[in-house]
């Protein structure tokens, strides 16, 4: 009897902080750097590194601008990022089976 093939989890999405960021961005159009940092309880440096990896994978877009003479960095989920998150959730469901 052939063993059903288990799905692989996308390592870019799987890191806890990156998964948190993608989940947060999935419910909004765009979000500020500070909002993402506060919601995940992360530090500037830590979340900055993970955001860079997500940007590198083209899972998120970054927009830098000025508001009231203060720099503002906004992030949004790309269609590719949304698809990656969907695939990750589907794989997670399959791996966990009846637990969810």
């Amino acid at each position, binding site marked *: 009897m052939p063993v059903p093939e288990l799905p692989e989890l996308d390592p870019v999405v799987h*890191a806890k902080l990156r998964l948190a960021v993608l989940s947060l961005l999935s419910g909004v159009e765009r979000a500020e750097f500070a909002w993402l940092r506060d919601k995940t309880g992360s530090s500037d440096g830590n979340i900055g590194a993970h955001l860079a990896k997500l940007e590198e994978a083209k899972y998120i877009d970054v927009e830098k601008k000025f508001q009231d003479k203060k720099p503002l960095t906004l992030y949004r989920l790309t269609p590719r990022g949304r698809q990656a998150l969907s695939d990750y959730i589907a794989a997670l469901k399959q791996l966990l089976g009846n637990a969810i």
Partner: protein
Amino acid sequence: MPDAEMNPTTSNRAELLERLTVLEQMVNEGRRSTEKWGWIFILWGIAPLTALYWQIHWPHPDWSWPVMMTLAAAITATVSSRQHGHDPKRDTAVHRALSSVWAVSGSSIFLYILVAVLSHHYNDLRAFLATLFILLAIPNTVSAAVLRWRTQYLVSGMWWCAVVLAFFAPMSWEVPIYVTALLLGNVAFGIYLSIIERRSSEKGYARA
């Protein structure tokens, strides 16, 4: 949130369940809004009622409406900008749509009352009040439809009833209708909304 790079292929069941929890928590966090709207309804209920009281009972009645409307607009602008300044933002289509509807309606009501009072051309009180009620009914109806919120449907229904009453009720009822509509539609609804917002912020969910 501490993070460690992991090899997904070696993830055990507990780790996968942890990831699932992160997903659920963060999706809920993304929906959570810290913005408060209830106080704006209360303010825009109290300000016109105060203006009316001033017009009838206090000196310099001509100043009542311009002063109260300008004061309410200034408070709204100042407090709103402070709220935004202290709170890093997330942006949703629903939030932007509702903010736009209320901003346009609020500006229209402000200009309408100010121009009508300053020009003294509001002799037809029925038409004046009916128009004002329509300007309040429309954004409430839009909000109710977007949020699918039964309570706000009731509020918008009340404003549409006020429009009908403004035309058909006896003239002596006009001021009581105006006062009752503002007390119910703005002050009472604003208090109710503030209570909901406080509960929502404690639980971590919000409507927009």
